């Protein structure tokens, strides 16, 4: 049997404790990460039923001109997002960001249900001169799709 000196024993216990703490932390972290990943989709993905229903996802596109419709007494609003090929109607309740404008590229976070997108969050960029990279990506990807009536 191998006998450790007291010093080595102490060190071994320390290392084991550290490893245990570390591995549980890593495990928890990866689990949390897995639970909180929001995949990105484009309006064309949604129209072609490529996106999971009911799961929290992100979608980017341009706000179609004249499509912003507000509720009469509450903060509900709906608008259409396009990637220049396909359109998706977004429903949202809340205050839109200052930089939300028609024809502006924005990103929405929410769920895709019954052919409408229920947004929990609407994001526009701080800087109005640039498109969010996701929107550029959305338009880029839309080239693979045909228009769907």
């Amino acid at each position: 049997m191998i006998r450790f000196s007291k010093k080595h024993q102490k060190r071994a216990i320390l290392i084991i404790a550290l490893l245990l703490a570390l591995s549980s932390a890593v495990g928890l972290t990866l689990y949390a990460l897995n639970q909180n990943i929001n995949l990105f989709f484009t309006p064309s993905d949604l129209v072609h039923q490529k996106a999971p229903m009911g799961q929290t996802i992100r979608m980017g596109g341009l706000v179609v001109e004249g499509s912003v419709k507000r509720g009469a007494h509450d903060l509900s609003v709906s608008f259409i997002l396009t990637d220049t090929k396909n359109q998706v109607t977004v429903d949202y309740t809340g205050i839109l960001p200052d930089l939300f404008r028609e024809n502006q590229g924005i990103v929405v976070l929410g769920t895709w249900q019954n052919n409408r997108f229920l947004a929990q969050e609407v994001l526009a960029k701080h800087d109005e001169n640039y498109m969010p990279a996701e929107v550029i990506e959305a338009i880029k990807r839309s080239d693979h799709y045909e228009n769907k009536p």
Partner: protein
Amino acid sequence: MIPELGHFALILAFCFAVMQTVAGGKSALLAAQSYTNAIDTTSSKAAVLFCLAQFIFLLISFISLEYAFITNDFSVVYVSAQSHSDLPLMYRISGLWGGHEGSLLLWVLMLSGWGAMVALRRKALPRSTHATLIAILGLLSLGFLAFILFTSNPFARLLPIIPIEGQDLNPLLQDPALIIHPPLLYMGYVGFSVAFACAVTALITGRFDRAYARWMRPWTLMAWLFLTLGIVIGSWWAYYVLGWGGWWFWDPVENASFMPWLLGCALIHTLAVVEKRNAFKRWAILLAMTTFFLCLLGTFLVRSGILTSVHAFANDPERGLYILIFLAVVMGAALVLYLWRAPQIKHTVGFDYLSRENFLLINNVLLTLACATVFLGTLYPLFLEIFTQNKISVGPPYFSSVFVPLMIFLFIFMGAAPQSEFKTTPARSFILPLSISAVSALVLAGIVGFFLPFGVMITVALGTWIIFTLLENLLIHYKSLTASNYGMVIAHLGAAVLLLGVGLSKQMEIETDVSMQVGDHVLVGPYTFTLTGLNPGFGPNYTTIIGDIQITRKDKLVTVLHPEKRTYTANNIAQSQTAIAPGLLRDLYVALGEPLGKNRWSVRVYYKPFVRWIWLGGLLIAAGALCAFFDKRYRIKSRVQYV
């Protein structure tokens, strides 16, 4: 003429940086070859002079650019892109660091400023060590100066057509807090270059003793202090400017400054062990290197626009590539040096389970883990996209769900650690005071638990646990406390206040978004908010709509708030101005959303208890660092004698 002068001064500063590196390196080499402490004084003195000259010329360069901003010299491209003649003087001055080129100039100015401070504190270190330090700092300056000169010259002119008007500063940046937020953050980032240079010097010379750690501590404290202040002010700015009532968004750019803060915090604690016990030396070196690596990485992430962030102001892959190469060279070299030389730096001291060393070890493990989780959450989307082409984002719930458990552990240990002693702690002097604190904290939390939710109870238990143990620590040791100890007490108190602020405001806040017209009222918590008027107005460079919101509690008028919705004329950008009724126990927060038609507006009406404690806590942490900085033992004037 003045911009050319500035450009010329910048080139001269570059030359001095080269000379500083060469002279410092030569003097360090000579010292290494001769086995005595004798040194080529000419080159070591020259290195110091070059270092000072570099700082002075950068100052001239900086003042020239500032002059161009103040005098509205729109022939300079950078000025025309960042400023506008309607801007108040204050924002014209701060417009300098509103964009890439200017902030980089500020960055090198600060780097050389830290370098000059190190150069002037010559007496406290062995000459060869000092010369090596100066050479390394010169090398870092060199890299950044080359970056400015070759890729981002702020003095470039817009010829042949000189615009008569500038493009204006992004209105979000036109705010007093944002005048000082970036400089503070840069001071922090850049300040860690001294810790990095110290670590590399220790690897080169093979000497890392207690005196050296003592010399290194105040620099690290100062850098961390600036970083703390920068983050606190940034968070405060986000709270009242962005108009969402949030103060931290786990945005990649925020994370970029938070990661070095976490590791810097670990480093400060580790250096205490090195200084007191001559242990954890290699770990301290690794931490110092990694902290600076994260500072550079943060710069890279922000400047290259590689991460999708609401903050990413400009995408320029060329600049990103330069920083990346710089990062790879500096950090790669440091890493190789570490692997090669670190085994020479030995420490063989034992300590008990119940010792301050162990507590500080736990602190380090937890802070490093926290940093690693932020790192993972920030960079994971980028790496996944490279491998799978899938675009994802990591939501803030990830960060809160990993951070909260880590912080709970951290706070439990934070309460116990100050009561421990180095090497070994007698159980009697440890257990009794801690049990008293623990019981009082639990009792207090239990009382709170009767009225408020479970999460609030946990927060109160942790917060009071730390406060009680600190008070006990003061009572027991009040005779022998140094400035350093007081600094620790203040900073830990700050951490407790911060914890209470975050925990209580998160769990007790009420956020309502409503559609209102004049005369409407809404009930939030114990307060009634009534919209009594909406009036147009104008400012120097914007037009605005001002709301009048009356707040009453039990039919007594509390205050009238005036949130605004501004439209900046130069670029037609709308921006909300929030109105806040601040209080130590609660904030009332109102922001105008957007016109909904038929005289209706959307309005954010928030009740945020204890939210102010978050920044108060942050400021206390900074005050603690400052207090520790002024400890007398860091002010030893005479040269430490080495064998």
